């Protein structure tokens, strides 16, 4: 039975108003109007078969909270999960701005009504450019993988070449996203993805294998800093030199929270930088917190290949007043449809604004401190855990994450993680299927949020389980 109470989200659900509106437009009913626009054979007959409505806000809150309340979070459990989505400290001011009605609910308004949004977007670009050492960035895209996919396609268009070299230790999920951007070989313009071997001792690229694979069809060499498995690629300058020597572009994927302590990719020869924004103040939200960025030098040929919305600062008719607008907008799919540079759409602008707030709160010293804290705590954990019999942290040079190998203990991470779970701990991600060559390893992530006591507790519990 239809409720006689008006729906609080629908003002014109008041029966008298609805009737008045129908009278105004000269129709007896909504059905009559629908029938004038949609043929009868396409009209859905009857009522949708759905559970009863929960119109009261209080009841709805109870209903949904009862379902979601069963879940555990990385606040309740001690978590060492990372691998593309990381548990970092989120300043309260980031939440405050993320929840501002204006930013939360704006969408496609222009720069006169939404000046603040345009300026915030531009400031995101400005701040991320400072971290990576570039001069151009745009509104963020969906995630690191999509950003890498776009960057690889930019490189292919720039060089007219059809091969991309990626590290064998790249995240398989991210590689899958990139591969979908590169198209199957049957298709015109397809980009062939080749994996370059990685050194199983260091986790970094095998330079000899790279040399072998580089050729006149290589559009770009893509590598990451830190890599998916945490290794710091310290031969970036050599890799870039080799790639440039072969006429290829250099695309570097980064975790920007490392850039207060790690050299910016521009220092070692990157042409295009991409990466993940989520560590910069965005909650994980079960992976919903992701946002990818792309940056490059300010050269017209690079700018021309961006699919993203690029916000530029400009002036107005009033001297000294800042205005903003979209640069070289004709590139985008909104203007050029299938002739556009890939596509642009609703992506992750709010996450970009949150990241801008984060960078402005930390400043250069805060970015250095958070990087140092992650380095120290993750290395402390690697050392502490490696004291356990049969346990070894792989890769000596890393940031935030490392494969924790337990081959020597004769157990599987599948079972160990189950035991840890019973003790209130999410162990690292079991990567024994993704990278069998690394044996029983779990990608173990330690950030600034972990205390020494957390790490010691993890070590003690792991030791007890393996004993």
């Amino acid at each position, binding site marked *: 039975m239809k409720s006689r109470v008006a729906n609080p*989200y629908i003002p014109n659900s008041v029966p008298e108003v609805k009737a008045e*509106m129908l009278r105004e*437009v000269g*129709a007896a009913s909504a059905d009559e109007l629908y029938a*004038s626009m*949609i043929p009868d054979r*396409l009209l859905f007959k009857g009522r949708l078969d759905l559970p009863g409505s*929960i119109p009261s806000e209080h009841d*709805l809150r109870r209903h*949904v909270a009862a379902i979601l309340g069963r*879940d555990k*979070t990385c606040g*309740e459990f001690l*978590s060492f999960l990372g691998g593309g989505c990381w548990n970092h400290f989120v*300043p309260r001011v980031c939440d405050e*701005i993320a929840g501002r009605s204006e930013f*939360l*609910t*704006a*969408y*496609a308004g222009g720069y*006169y*009504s*939404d*000046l*603040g949004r345009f300026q915030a977007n531009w400031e995101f670009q400005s701040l991320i*450019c*400072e971290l990576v050492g570039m001069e151009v*960035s*745009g509104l963020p895209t*969906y995630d690191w993988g*999509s950003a890498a996919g776009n960057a690889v*396609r930019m490189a292919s268009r720039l060089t007219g070449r059809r091969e991309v070299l990626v590290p064998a230790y790249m995240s398989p999920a991210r590689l899958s996203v990139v591969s979908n951007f590169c198209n199957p070989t049957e298709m015109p313009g397809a980009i062939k993805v080749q994996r370059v071997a990685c050194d199983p001792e260091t986790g970094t690229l095998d330079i000899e294998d790279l040399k072998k694979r580089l050729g006149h069809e290589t559009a770009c060499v893509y590598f990451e800093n830190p890599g998916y498995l945490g290794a710091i690629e310290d031969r*970036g*300058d050599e890799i870039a030199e080799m790639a440039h020597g072969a006429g290829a572009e250099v695309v570097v994927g980064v975790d920007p929270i490392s850039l*207060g302590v790690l050299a910016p990719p521009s*220092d070692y020869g990157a042409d295009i930088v991409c990466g993940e924004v989520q560590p910069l103040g965005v909650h*994980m939200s*079960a992976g919903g917190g992701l946002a990818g960025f792309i940056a490059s030098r300010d050269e017209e040929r690079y700018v021309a290949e961006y699919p993203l919305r690029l916000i*530029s*600062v*400009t002036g*107005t008719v009033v001297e000294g007043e800042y205005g903003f607008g979209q*640069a*070289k*907008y*004709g590139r985008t799919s909104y203007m050029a449809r299938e002739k556009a540079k890939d*596509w642009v759409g*609703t992506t*992750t602008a709010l*996450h970009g604004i949150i990241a801008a707030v984060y960078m*402005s709160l930390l*400043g*250069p010293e805060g970015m250095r*401190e958070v990087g140092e*804290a992650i380095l*120290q705590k993750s290395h*402390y954990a690697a050392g502490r855990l490696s004291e356990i019999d049969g346990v070894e942290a792989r890769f000596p040079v890393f940031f935030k994450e490392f494969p924790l190998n337990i081959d020597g203990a004769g157990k599987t991470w599948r079972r160990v993680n189950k035991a840890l*779970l019973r003790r209130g701990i*999410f162990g690292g991600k079991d990567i024994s299927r993704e990278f069998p060559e690394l044996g029983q390893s779990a990608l173990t992530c330690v950030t600034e949020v972990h205390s020494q006591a957390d790490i010691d507790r993890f070590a003690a519990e792991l030791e007890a389980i393996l004993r």
Partner: protein
Amino acid sequence: MTGVKVRPYHAAVWSEPLIHELGRSGERGVILPEVEEGVRKRVGKPESLVPKRMRRRERPGLPELSQPQALRHWLRLSQMTLGMETDIDLGVGTCTMKYSPKVNEELAAMIAGVHPDQPEETMQGLLEVAWRFANVYLREISGMDAFTFQPPGGSAGAFNNAAIMRKYHEQNGELGQRDEIITTIFSHPCDAACPATAGFKVVTLYPDEETGVPSVEALKAAVSKRTAGIFVTNPEDTGIFNGRIDEWTKIVHEAGGLCAYDQANLNAVMGVTRAREAGFDMSFFNLHKTFSSPHGSSGPGSGAVGVTDELGEYLPVPVIVRRGEGYHLDYDRPKSIGRVRDFLGNLQVVVRAYAWAAAMGADGLREAAEVSMINNQYLSKRMAEVPGVTKPYGGRRLDQARWSLEKLKAETGCGINDVNRRVVDYGVQSFFTSHHPWVVPEPFTPEPCETYSKADIDYWVAVLKRVCEEAYEDPEVLKKAPHNSSIHAVDAAPLDDPDRWAMSWRAYRRKMKK
């Protein structure tokens, strides 16, 4: 409409400096967690943990601000943004600027601390919400059989569907031959751009002058052995419903192609007409439009995809499945397209959509659709009072209509861009015009969804009427607009000039020699 008085308005004018111009060396907005002495002693100095050539030599050029000063800056920027909740935002059509219930923000925040790789048993609630929203709500609303929330926006949903189309023809050994997709010019640009990115050639159909949609004959002439499929929005961005859409899907199927529906905006047809009965193989639905999740200044959104049973095996991994009483992530799907995004998509958006749909129920969803549609009929009627406005193509429109200011432009010299600069002086969000090309000259596309009251619509029309009257009285008022905004008319020339555009503070400083 007599008695509707347009009220004076002025936007916030903070003349706010750029963030890099604020603060002072040494200021700090937040302190990081402590690194304990035991940790520091054991691992030594942080720089010793980074190879020399990978150490950052110069600190990043970020500004330094204390917390109140930083907060003030971002709050001022938010105040100079006309959010959907503070204005009558029905001018941003095709986007369904509907109200996002506040309680849903609280529910979405419950998953903030969840990591996507947590053991399944620790996120059964979240998986249940996602599974139920897909397999109870979207299934019934669309008639599709299997779903994914991995595409994090509408266009990503279109790309996902292009990837499915690609995989399907690849599996059948026909990908080499089937390299064309067909779309219509009034379908969203993503229906052309995403298949093109996926490697397809794109054939675009133009509307019949009378009906406003391409004819069945035009489609018949376009299909061939090269047809991989179609991507169409319906109702199209003009608000016109293609009533022969089931004939279209039949023609494409007979030619061996697949049919992908763009139902990003499903708002006026929920419970009224479905993808299934129209004969589609797959469709995407924007949860940040029809299903109330806020637009977030342009994301995060969700382009939820539904497909028929036949295509279920192609969905990206993982797929959320129910076995017995439990919910699981199924990765074992050999024909899957792989991934279009990392992890599971924007699940916080799915939580909001579920909460909204659960609150509404079948009657509420139908009510939202009906009221949206009736609101648009009412707006159309009121529009007759606005001078200089015309509506190309005959007939009623569902959720929105594409209008034209061609007449106003011819008679006053003021077109949509002038009107758009002026409406903001009255506290009304500038209109969504139309994507390009402007097949309808000087276009705009209001969408008065169920959020807006009769009084809201009357007020919005009164503002537009006032602005168009001004165009006839004194076009300079529009030409020099905005007058009551946060800023004045922008110099657009640098935006396409490599010597003057500046996408960052670094570039700006260099180019302006600051």
